[in-house]
Each structure stands twice: as C-alpha cells, then as structure tokens.
C-alpha cells in the first residue's frame, strides 16, 4: 500500500483529494490530509465582510464535510518536513511517512514583519482583511469611520489575491458614497509597484476607474515602518503617508515549518516546476495553490486550473510514467468595482489580461476588462460554486488551458 500525504486541507488540498480519490485505486493508494483545525474558510469572502455583505457564516464551514470518503483527515500541525527520509513530523510528536507528498499549506499575512504594525493602533486604526478576525475588526472600524484619510496599502508582492486591495478601495468608495460621507473621506491607494495597474492593456482600460472615483495613488512605496503615534506609514526613501484608518496588506509568507526543509525560497514558498508543481529538489514532493512559488497570482483560480492539470499528471507519475501535461499559468478572477458592478480578468503566464468576452467568444456572457453588473453577479455566484462544485472535485464547464478565442488583441506600442 502506498501513501499520498497532503499537508493542508484548504482550497488546494481539498480540491486535489476530491479529484484524486476516485482516480487512484483504493487498494493501492492510501490518502491522508493533515490540517490543524476543522474550519474551512472561503477566503474570497473576507473582502465582503467589512461592508456587511457577508457575515462570518458565509465564509466558514466545517472542513471535514468537504474531505471525501476514503481520505483520512488528521488534525495536527506539521513541525518539520524531512524530504530525505520521506516523512513529516507533527508538533504533537506523530511521524507520518509518505511515498508522495503534496504541500498545500498556503500563505498567510505577517504583520510582525513590518515594524510598528502590531503596535498600540493594531486593530484600532491599523487593520488588515486577510484573516477572518481582521475582516471582522475592520467592519467595526468602517462602521465607526466618520471621515478622514482612508489608506489602503500593500507591503510587498507576492500577496494572496493581488486585486483584493484594489477591490477594497473600490468598495470603500461605494460604501462611503452610500453613507453620504464620501466628500469627508480622502481615499489613498499605496503600492510598491509602479502603478495600480502594471500590465499595459489593463492599465489603458482600467486606469480611469481610480481617477473617476477620486482615489489617489501613491506608487513605488517601499514601507519601512508604521508610525502608530504619528499615524503614518513611512517608506525607505522617507516619504510619509498619514492615515486616520489604515488597511494594510502585510508581507505574505508560506508556512514557517517549511523553512530549513531544503524545499523553499526566502518567503517559504516551495520551489516547483511551474508546469507540473513538482519540487525542483525532490521528485516525490509537489506543491499546489498558494504554497508554491509559481510566477503567477496566488489565488483560488490558479489552484483550481493547475489542479486540473496536476490530476492528469499525477495518475501518470503514480504509475512511474513521465508527466505529459503542462499547466500554462491560466487564471481568471472577478474584480469588484463597487456599485453592484465588477470586472473579469483572464490570463496566463504569457498573456496579459485582454478585453473581449468569456467564456464563449463574442457572446460571453461575461465581459473581460470592463465593468458590468453581470460580472458582479458572477462573483457572488462563485461562492455557491466554490462550496458545491470546486471543493467536491466536480467540473466547472471551463477548460484548464487559457484560450485566445474571444480576446481582442490590440497594439500596445
């Protein structure tokens, strides 16, 4: 009997076992998932919590409900991976041996990495929304906010769901308009990149969204510290941006137990082949979802499409055959733009987001790179699809490879 061990029962870990269990002979393969608790969080839902659109119960269900029959769920925290010995040690002393290992332990915000973040203003005027507690605390702060400088800030790339901070700024703009206090609020979006939009076509199509909403953009901002007393963020080149309410996206890092395993980079992301998810150091170790160092967005869509490809590959790999399928970096995401509208992006490793229609060329129904009410509806429907289709390993009627059909190519130079 061979053993497939999966660390992490979040989006990627749950999807992959749902796909693999029916495809691997139960007399030949035992599958185990390790996670520390029985709460599965729908992380895209965090964005809507500060504005009261979603509540805690929209974002949390029991993890064990989504782990399929025939897969053992072990509660515990990994302490160390020992890839030379093909085993994982848990903090409670258990030792789990494996033949094949999948690391799907994601990424998490690290407010402690930026000086001053966890100071006297933490969860008072300094907030984040990449955890459930953070999103709930921010809701209280936004409810109490009567005007002033509202600053949305990204520490450094890569971050999970890279458009979420922009969406938060759009939703905050719409929220304060609805409350009739928008003229009392100064909205500022602060990024370490050279613009809010960095891809030429998207920048040309979407640049107006920020100006229209009166959202100021501060670029190339490399934060050194948060000055909680002065209520300002301070950069390495000594720029200071004052705030009354700060929503920061802290540095994101992969799980700490991976440090020193010989598998990861400086941010604890597992170094993998970008087409297969296979470790660049150990052929029987894979990483899926945010835990991997894929050169693309850390997002559920990336996990979903890459797992479609991985499922095909792993069935070959399990029989000792070469893997013949290649993930192309395809991902797409709905982007909330406020006022009941949204955008849709579709891209891969080589193709930047382009305008057009998706998934049916010329028809849609979704419009790429432009605002529509249907794109917003798509984002809200996605919550249902997540719990009922994706986590169950069922198919969405969308191909894993990106298609150029339906996209409009335009000269950018």
């Amino acid at each position, binding site marked *: 009997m061979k053993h497939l061990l999966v660390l992490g029962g979040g989006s990627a870990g749950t999807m992959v076992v749902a796909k693999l269990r029916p495809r691997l002979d139960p007399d030949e393969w035992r599958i185990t998932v390790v996670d520390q608790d029985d709460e599965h969080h729908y992380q895209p839902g965090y964005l809507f919590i500060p504005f009261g659109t979603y509540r805690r119960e929209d974002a949390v269900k029991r993890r064990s409900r989504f782990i399929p029959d025939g897969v053992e769920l072990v509660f515990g925290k990994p302490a160390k991976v020992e890839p030379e010995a093909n085993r994982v040690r848990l903090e409670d002393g258990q030792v789990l041996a494996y033949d094949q290992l999948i690391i799907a332990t994601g990424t998490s915000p690290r407010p402690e990495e930026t000086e001053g973040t966890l100071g006297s203003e933490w969860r008072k005027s300094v907030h984040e929304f990449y955890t459930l507690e953070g999103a709930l605390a921010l809701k209280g702060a936004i409810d109490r906010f009567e005007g002033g400088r509202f600053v949305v800030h990204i520490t450094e790339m890569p971050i999970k769901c890279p*458009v979420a901070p922009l969406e938060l700024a759009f939703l905050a703009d719409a929220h304060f308009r609805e409350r009739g206090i928008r003229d009392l609020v100064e909205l500022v979006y602060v990024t370490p990149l050279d613009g809010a939009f960095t891809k030429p076509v998207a*920048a040309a199509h979407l640049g107006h969204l920020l100006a229209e909403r009166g959202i100021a953009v501060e670029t190339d901002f490399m934060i050194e510290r948060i000055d909680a007393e002065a209520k300002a963020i301070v950069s390495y080149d000594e720029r200071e941006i004052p705030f009354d309410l700060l929503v920061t996206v802290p540095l994101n890092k992969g799980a700490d137990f991976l440090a020193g395993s010989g598998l990861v980079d400086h941010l604890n992301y597992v170094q993998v082949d970008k087409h297969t998810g296979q470790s660049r150091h150990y052929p029987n170790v894979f990483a899926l979802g945010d835990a991997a160092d894929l*050169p693309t967005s850390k997002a559920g869509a990336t996990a979903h499409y890459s797992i479609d490809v991985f499922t095909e590959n792993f069935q070959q790999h399990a029989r000792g055959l070469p893997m013949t399928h290649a993930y192309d970096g395809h991902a797409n*995401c709905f982007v909330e733009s406020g006022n009941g509208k949204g955008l849709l992006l579709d891209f891969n490793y080589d193709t930047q987001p382009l305008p057009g229609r998706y998934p049916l060329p010329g028809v849609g129904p979704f419009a790429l790179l432009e605002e529509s009410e249907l794109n917003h509806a798509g984002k809200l429907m996605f919550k249902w699809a997540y719990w009922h289709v994706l986590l169950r390993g069922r198919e969405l009627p969308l191909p894993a490879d990106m298609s150029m059909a339906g996209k409009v190519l335009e000269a950018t130079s």
Partner: protein
Amino acid sequence: MTIATIAGQNVHVNEEGFLTEFGEWNESIAAELAKDVGIDELTSDHLAVLRFLREDYQSNGETPTLRRVSTVGGFDTKRLFQLFPKKPAKKMSYVAGVPKPVGCV
C-alpha cells in the same frame, strides 16, 4: 515588440523600453539604459545589484522583489534607493535587462 538600437546594437524591447531577450544584454547596453533613467554612471555598486538581479532571474524565472534583493542579495534597501533613486524596483530591472515586477493587472 520592436527593435531598438542601443549602444550601437540592435535589441528587442517592449512598449516600455524593457529588453525582452535576456541574452541581448551587456554592460555597454546597461550603461545606456542607466542614462535613460537618470543614472549617469554605473559604479561597481550598481553593477553588483544588476548582476544579482540577472542571476536570480535566471535561476527563478522571475524578477526579484526589492525585499528579495535586500534579504537574499544582501543589499541594504536604503542604499538601493540611493543607487536607483525614487523607483528602484523599476529602474534596477530596466537597467538589468529583466522584466519589471508586476501584479496580475
């Protein structure tokens, strides 16, 4: 994609003037690119940073972030702002002939 002549050599560049072919870079081209972004002379300190960017890009397929240049490359962040004023991430990658760091849009 267009062809530009830099330091007497024909190279491929994108719409923002970044080199798109890793192998077409050399130090004489870098010296010209540096002038475009207001750096009159490339010192050995500049070149050490550029070399780290290129080596790291080659082994990982991705341009290192400022944080990575500092934590892995060992370059002080404030020093990077002195060497490549105001926009170090963009200027370093431009001069090093690697893609600029981007988000997903």
